[in-house]
């Protein structure tokens, strides 16, 4: 999952005696356990003797078809298991030598492990539909990615935003209501950012103007949004659902050519406009944060607001602007729950995704691309759980649904190496 096999030989300045840092056993152990699980649990004692697993790729309209891949379950898992054991051995050897491994290593390991796991889980249960698996993963990631971008813009400028959950929910609510009232899903899409920004107005008012603890105000806002939307849902929306809460769905807009690439095409380029907007938001944020005047100032007020102040940057005004932009992004992401998925609004339908988005931001080390990667990982784990539990695999579905949260706990606990938050994160800035 990460490359934090950072170990190095410490050299004392001035050529004193060298001191070796302790061997980092964390990753060799994890690799070893996973490799053994693959070899023994999925392979030798997986109960898959004689069964086979089929992976299907095609989605009908591809440029060219890829025939389904059928493998013998036991032979495959044992073979992959042996490869993984060898990789774990290499990782151990490198750890003892205190050498670094590139990012490709954990990714390759993860992909192989996943392949073995799917082979084992799908043995004798028909076929594993790869394209829907990935497409579902992206769908579940969309609100996470929007939420993580919201958190990132806020925290890079020094304001912790726990209210992402509430902003997603508010966005979902307003998108559903406006789209239903106007009978146009695009109207909902336009309305959603305002809902998120409205929550951000309250957040910035208390957090930046009155220095209220940012965590507390964020938690309170979440509860407030749940309360308001649930109240309106049970009163206005349920009394006249045709007017206020009728389903409206954003149409899928396939992109010519790109949408016909096998597997990736349907996953990435046969989506609604909301997903395309997401690609743009991520790309723009990445460029803006690291290569624009706005980004330089944003990072400065999140790291050392006083330094920014002494060169005449209005710290608090910039923070307010950024928190509002961030809120609008999260509100837009919330629209995915309703108009983006063609669903009506339901009570508390954001279901904790705002918090997972925060975790994705941290796991992605406050970098837009890292956060997207982390959000996709969470989305994939969740969709895998859903898919496997409907397929009737030997693993209990509830256990699989816990997977993303277990990953989150490890990730946030710093397992991926030292993660450095913006230095002034969560600290209100006041001039003397």
């Amino acid at each position, binding site marked *: 999952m990460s490359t934090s096999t950072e170990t190095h030989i410490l050299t004392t300045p001035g050529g004193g005696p060298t001191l070796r840092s302790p061997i980092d056993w964390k990753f060799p152990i994890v690799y070893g356990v996973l490799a053994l699980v693959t070899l023994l649990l999925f392979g030798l004692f997986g109960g898959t003797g004689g069964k086979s697993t089929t992976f299907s790729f095609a989605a009908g309209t591809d440029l060219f078809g890829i025939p389904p891949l059928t493998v013998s379950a036991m032979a495959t898992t044992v073979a992959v298991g042996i490869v993984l054991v060898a990789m774990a051995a290499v990782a151990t050897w490198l750890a003892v030598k205190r050498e670094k491994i590139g990012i490709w290593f954990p990714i390759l390991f993860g992909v192989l492990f996943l392949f073995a796991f799917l082979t084992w889980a799908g043995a004798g249960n028909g076929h594993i539909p790869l394209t829907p698996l990935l497409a579902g993963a992206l769908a579940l990631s969309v609100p996470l990615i929007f939420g993580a971008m919201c958190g990132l813009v806020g925290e890079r400028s020094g304001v912790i935003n726990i209210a992402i959950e509430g902003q997603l929910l508010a966005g979902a609510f307003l998108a559903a209501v406006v789209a239903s009232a106007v009978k146009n899903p695009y109207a909902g899409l336009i309305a959603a950012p305002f809902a998120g920004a409205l929550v951000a107005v309250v957040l910035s008012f208390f957090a930046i103007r009155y220095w209220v603890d940012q965590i507390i105000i964020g938690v309170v806002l979440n509860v407030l949004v749940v309360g308001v939307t649930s109240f309106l849902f049970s009163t206005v929306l349920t009394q006249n659902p045709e007017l206020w809460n009728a389903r409206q769905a954003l149409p899928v807009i396939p992109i010519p050519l790109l949408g016909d690439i096998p597997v990736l095409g349907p996953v990435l380029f046969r989506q609604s406009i909301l997903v395309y907007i997401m690609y743009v938001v991520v790309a723009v944020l990445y460029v803006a944060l690291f290569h624009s005047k706005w980004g330089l*100032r944003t990072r400065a007020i999140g790291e050392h607001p006083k330094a920014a102040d002494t060169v005449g940057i209005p710290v608090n005004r910039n923070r307010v602007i950024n928190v509002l932009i961030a809120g609008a992004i999260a509100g837009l992401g919330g629209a995915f729950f309703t108009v983006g998925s063609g669903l009506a609004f339901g009570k508390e339908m954001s279901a904790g995704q705002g918090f997972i988005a925060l975790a994705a931001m941290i796991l992605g080390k406050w970098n837009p691309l890292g956060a997207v990667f982390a959000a996709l990982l969470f989305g994939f784990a969740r969709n895998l759980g859903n898919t496997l539990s409907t397929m009737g695999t030997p693993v209990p579905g509830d256990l699989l649904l816990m997977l993303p949260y277990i990953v989150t706990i490890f990730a946030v606990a710093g397992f991926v190496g030292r993660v450095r938050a913006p230095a002034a994160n969560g600290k209100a800035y006041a001039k003397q």
Partner: protein
Amino acid sequence: MKLELRGITKRFGSFTANDSIDLVVEPGEIHALLGENGAGKSTLMNTLYGLYAPEEGEILIDDRPVAFSGPGDAVSAGIGMVHQHFMLVPVFTVAESVALGYEPTKSGALLDLGEARRKVTEISARFGFHIDPDAVIEDLPVGAQQRVEIIKALSRDAKILILDEPTAVLTPQETDELIEIMRQLKAGGTSIVFITHKLREVRAIADGITVIRRGKVVGEASPESSESELAGLMVGRDVHLTTDKTDADPGEATFSVRGLTVVDKSESVVVSDVSLDVRRGEILAIAGVDGNGQSELAEAIVGLVEPRSGTISLDGDDLAGLSVKERLRKGIGFVPEDRSTDGVIASFTISENMILDLYDQPPYAKGLSLQPAVVRSEAEEKVSEFDIRLTSIDDPISTLSGGNQQKVVLSRELGRPLRLLVASQPTRGLDVGSIEFVHKRIIAERDSGTPCVIVSTELDEVFNIADRIAVMYRGRIVGVVPADTPRDVLGLMMAGVPEDEALARVEDGSAATEISAAEEDPA
């Protein structure tokens, strides 16, 4: 450009930090603003820089009144400031730091870092700064960070440069380099306001001196004034710049450190293979520029950080594995470096602060209960013994001045029989009177036979109280030298030059520093 301040008054609540201050800085002049810590120098400069709004008074530039609503206005009026605590974002590169706030852009909103790099290279070359525009700030040594601050100011065409305590973090040699830079700037027509409390530097560089005491201008002085004249003006009475002390009468070495290595959180070595012996009845001063591992060494002795390797022993007992509390019980007294965060609990009363480490010991505690009567009577006794100026021992300690807070800390740490005293920066931020008192108490503790380890970054303090001096540089002990070692030798050692080489270089005259030359001028 000529700068004039007329009747500047700045109040914080009922406290008047600046009381109708007048100051004139002529074009191309290096003007020193001299005063003790807390005299109001920084407040005045922050007011000039637009960070504070003054209650009264006006600022004139080239005889025209100006009003600043923020630092941006001050910068566009041609004022640049190098703050005592650098205003640099640690994770930024030099180019980004210089660009911040005045970003060159290309094609819309995109940053033109190439332009910022060119600017850094150009100014850096003009003054011989050797600054790489792509270096990350946190990787640069302090002296280089300071030069980045100067580049920042110059890149915005500063005509008046304010340097707030610029030498506090520098070695004597780096201070010389800074003085050279100041001369170059002056030659280029830049006026400089140089804020300091170090008399030697003022005499070395200033063209004019304004002395501030308790928020008021108490006089102008010329650089020809003697150090004791300046000190008298600054403090308001005659001061003895040195503390009288008898020669040490050291006994056997009871405290020793062997091969101590400490590694910090980011896995870099901060204390490297340090070995020391301290004898009963002597003061070993640990000299060095801030951030060379002295603080960590002191913390390792007290048990606040776990060393990676090495042993620490007191009276023959190995201290390894003992908690801080157990070490204090063994008779270690510790005066921490940062009084306000580690020395006292600001909201606790003075008497409570006096028993922070003794609250569960007799006579202050009996079983589970505290003995308030004993706590009070002991506190009253210490107040008179240590001459602590206060209204009531039941007031929060935050109501006391820094000097009196430090006396409370000392009364706590010295108020029990000690077998070792460790004091980190015991006089940082104190007024001259309190410094004298603290030094006397430490010397008294030495005379009672306690081995003392005093960490100090102020060379004056080191010379004042040390019997032997250990110089630290980048975590290593460069050498342990006698207290009468010349200042220049110590300065070179603080920059990592070994003792023999430093001695040789000073003897052949290739390393005499300007500030020590200033010292030798007949006053």
